[in-house]
């Protein structure tokens, strides 16, 4: 590290910047206000020649704080990549000229906008340091897989094939899980028309043959501590012995259990000829190629009714609110068992409400079922009871809209899948702070309470026994399923280095579980590899920075340890935060939470943002030039504004946009400072929060919204109108809305008048 910070500001005049802005003026601003020692203008900064100019200054002139005054920080990242220096970007293209009209009247305010961005970038540069890899990292690359079903076995094999050692822990006496019980499985390859062999024996043999995989049967995880690259896991066997193993990353593939059919007496479970789809698999296997016989009297089945979605898709007490999804393909597969074994004249009727056969494969399999004369009837079954030596299924035919009934020798119930997860850390977490946050958590608990009344039995036995401050298991999103963003980051849980795969994540069939396991294995490998070099895995992949805190200033308030969405921070005996950098996602939510502002990253801190907002030139109250500050999430809101610029959507020249890692990292001191400095309006743009969140850091936006709901007190103290601060959820697609929010704030300020805090 160079001893002295030397700022080099480079102004690009390409892309029309030079035509629209006074480059000489920008140079002067960088020099005079930005205190840049080196200031250069280049007509094409991202060209090889422009980049070389910068690199030469770094190499020969000692420039170590590079300020690029050109396009958005999201553009030309490959060109502007310099080792060993910090980089600040003044967004003159997307942030200024593309959002302002090219007219003489607008020229003055547009130039002011650009000058401010140059000042801000220089101010930031002064407070940036080059991050170095976290030294507190482990080197373990071994993958622990919890659960020996198809998901766990696939994850283990895939990891081993990629060259990594695997420890596979299964609580039962053998590998195979549900798949071992299946007669056949849904086909996974074209033409998707016949059930196929499960191949379970080959799979188990492959695992046993692998010298990279160690299998621990009859075992549970008694304790998990550490961080990616250095997890320490106690494996307890049924016999009572415990061994401690070290692993780099963990995959939880604990699967599912079936909803209890006895909870729905109307479907007649208890009658020997009313069975679950799982039991039918055993019956089909037992038939050993001959006709499937009904359990009660061994009579060959000639008519079978499949009742789909039993106890699912309902808000009624005792029923699952979701649909298990895979059950319809299972029913088609099982109906084919009868066509194969009991002959084409065996009638198979599937009574469904919403048939789900996802994908081309599912559609082809559905058609194949129809070709085999499997009959589908849209209806709602109300009752199954014995009628002589057969069963009577009473239902409402939803196509013919009439109550009707049919007779069947055998009735098969499609029961829902319930994830096997540990207790949700946030359903039981006790918050020992007495401020308002406790209230919010209590409200959340109440909501959870309502769901808990929906007595879907969720196992309360811990699976991972995490030795974390924030609970023993992976956080859940809904209905007991683990929280993982199902579109953007499917396997990421809220515990870094621990991945969820298979039906613990959402209900799924074998094919999907295999895909899941493969994906999770790759993520686990990535996490362990990244940990080894002390950098972040997800979503700021490769980020070397990590949070540190100044112990002298810490008041042990525990906000950071409570609010960290990823449970990365523990507490030591004295109540000081104990960072586990390997578990950290680098969102800065702790930094935003800290009331005494002792938490910072080398290249992201209360100062790097605080100084930017203070660097803005605030005109006199009577200049009629208000100043608005936007703190925009760099993941969604900032790109939305960039795209607005690409579409040349204009917005107010009075706004200054500052990107933040996550809205959760916004420390309220920035708001207070901005108001005190004379800003007239402040907009916070974060991601969508709630159950269908889009926040890269899951809870960052939510926490920010909660914090900002209390900003009114600050505004009251300052005697300011509460309209001056607004917090919005902005999606990446809000290309028209984001600029509108800015313009609306500008209009609001015009209405309520300028801030009195201008000096």
């Amino acid at each position, binding site marked *: 590290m160079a001893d002295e910070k030397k700022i080099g500001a480079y102004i690009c005049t390409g892309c029309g910047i030079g035509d629209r802005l006074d480059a000489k003026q920008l140079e002067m601003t960088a020099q005079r206000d930005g205190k840049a020692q080196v200031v250069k203008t280049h007509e094409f900064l991202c060209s090889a020649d422009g980049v070389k100019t910068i690199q030469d200054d770094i190499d020969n002139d000692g420039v170590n704080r590079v300020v690029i005054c050109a396009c958005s920080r999201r553009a030309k990242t490959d060109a502007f990549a310099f080792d060993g220096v910090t980089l600040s970007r003044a967004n003159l293209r997307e942030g200024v000229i593309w959002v302002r009209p090219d007219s003489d009247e607008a020229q003055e305010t547009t130039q002011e906008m650009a000058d401010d961005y140059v000042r801000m970038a220089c101010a930031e540069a002064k407070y940036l340091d080059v991050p170095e890899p976290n030294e507190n990292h482990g080197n373990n690359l071994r993958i622990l897989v919890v659960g020996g079903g198809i998901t766990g076995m696939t994850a283990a094999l895939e990891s081993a094939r990629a060259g990594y050692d695997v420890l596979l822990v299964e609580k039962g006496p053998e590998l195979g899980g549900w798949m071992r019980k299946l007669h056949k499985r849904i086909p996974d390859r074209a033409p998707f028309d016949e059930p196929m062999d499960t191949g379970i024996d080959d799979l188990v043999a492959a695992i046993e043959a692998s010298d990279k995989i160690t299998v621990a049967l009859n075992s549970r995880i008694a304790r998990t501590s550490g961080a990616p690259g250095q997890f320490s896991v106690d494996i307890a066997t049924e016999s009572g012995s415990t061994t401690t193993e070290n692993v780099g990353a963990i995959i939880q593939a604990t699967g599912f259990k079936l909803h209890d059919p006895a909870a729905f007496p109307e479907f007649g479970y208890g009658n020997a000829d009313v069975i679950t789809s799982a039991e039918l698999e055993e019956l089909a296997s037992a038939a050993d190629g001959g006709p499937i016989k009904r359990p009660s009297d061994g009579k060959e089945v000639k*008519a079978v009714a499949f009742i789909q979605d039993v106890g699912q898709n309902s808000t009624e007490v005792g029923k699952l609110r979701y649909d298990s999804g895979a059950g319809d393909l299972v029913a088609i597969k099982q109906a084919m068992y009868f066509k194969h074994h009991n002959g084409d004249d065996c009638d198979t009727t599937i009574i469904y409400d919403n048939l789900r056969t996802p994908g081309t494969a599912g559609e082809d399999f559905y058609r194949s079922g129809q*070709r085999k*004369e499997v*009959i589908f009837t849209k209806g709602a079954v109300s009752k199954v009871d014995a009628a002589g030596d057969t069963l009577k299924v009473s239902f409402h035919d939803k*196509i013919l809209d009439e109550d009707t009934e049919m*007779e069947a020798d055998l009735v098969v119930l499609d029961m829902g899948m319930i994830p096997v997860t540990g207790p949700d850390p946030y359903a039981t977490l006790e918050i020992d702070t007495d401020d308002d946050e406790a209230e919010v958590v209590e409200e959340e608990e109440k909501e959870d309470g309502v769901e808990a009344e929906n007595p879907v039995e969720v196992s309360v036995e811990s699976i991972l026994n995490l030795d974390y401050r924030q609970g023993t298991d992976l956080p859940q999103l809904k209905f007991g399923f683990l929280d993982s963003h199902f579109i953007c980051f499917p396997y990421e849980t809220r515990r870094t280095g621990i991945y969820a795969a298979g039906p613990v994540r959402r209900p799924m069939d074998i094919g999907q579980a295999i895909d899941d396991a493969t994906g999770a294995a790759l993520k686990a490998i990535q996490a362990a590899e990244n940990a080894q070099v002390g950098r972040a895995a997800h979503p700021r992949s490769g980020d070397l920075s990590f949070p540190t805190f100044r112990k002298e200033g810490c008041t042990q308030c525990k906000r950071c340890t409570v609010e960290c969405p990823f449970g990365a921070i523990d507490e030591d005996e004295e109540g000081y935060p104990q960072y586990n950098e390997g578990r950290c996602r680098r969102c800065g939510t702790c930094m935003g939470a800290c009331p005494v502002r002792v938490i910072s990253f080398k290249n992201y801190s209360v100062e790097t943002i605080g100084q930017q907002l203070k660097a803005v030139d605030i005109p006199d109250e009577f200049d009629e030039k208000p100043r608005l500050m936007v703190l925009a999430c760099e993941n969604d809101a900032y790109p939305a504004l960039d795209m607005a610029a690409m579409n040349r959507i204009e917005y107010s020249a009075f706004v200054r946009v500052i990107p933040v890692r996550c809205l959760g990292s916004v420390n309220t001191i920035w708001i207070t400072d901005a108001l005190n400095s004379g800003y007239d309006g402040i907009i916070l743009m974060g991601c969508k929060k709630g159950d269908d969140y889009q926040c890269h850091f899951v809870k960052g936006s939510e926490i920010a919204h909660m914090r900002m709901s209390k900003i009114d007190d600050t505004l009251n103290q300052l005697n300011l109108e509460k309209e001056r601060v607004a917090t919005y959820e902005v999606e990446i697609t809000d290309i028209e809305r984001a600029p509108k929010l800015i313009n609306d704030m500008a209009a609001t300020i015009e209405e309520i008048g300028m801030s009195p805090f201008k000096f």
Partner: protein
Amino acid sequence: MSNTAMVKKYRNDFLREVEEKVEEGDWVRMCMQCGVCAGSCPLGDAWEHPPQEIFMMIRAGKREEVLGSDSMWMCTSCYNCIVRCPRELPITHIMHGLANYAHRLGLAPKANPTRRFAKIFWDNIATSGRVNELKLSLGLYFMDGFGNGIKKALAMKDVGLGLLKTGRLDPMGLFKAGGIKDKSGLQKALKKAREIEDTRKGY
């Protein structure tokens, strides 16, 4: 299968009967109950049971109701449903097939005007090999009795006179033999075709 076949509900007996005896009946199992045919039918309101329902009724084993229904007689062969069916069922043909089957079993609704028109038309064309328009229209007018026939004819008199004036309707057609040259050849061909159909469908 006799007219009084016992059919169990939601068992596949009737479906199999349809597959065996009805033109294109083996497509019925492929219906996925999306309802696009019902929504596409321009005469949908006139149908007691749109095709989607007919297919479900077949699966539900509602033999009497399906074969006694006048729904499939409402089909005007516009082919909208065939064009739109995502499962590519030849719905129009199945409807005609069902109507034909019901008629042959004697289960089709006796008073249904489409059925009666079809019968008059068939008898007309099958006799001479050409449609005798005058005989066809008169047959239609008077199928509900002499009084009704006069009424209908009077109501249509302007059209009829127009046709006469422009030479589009030959009044002598009533007495002329007309038709194709080899009438007996046609009769033979039709007879043979029927035999083949009966053997194939097992009537």
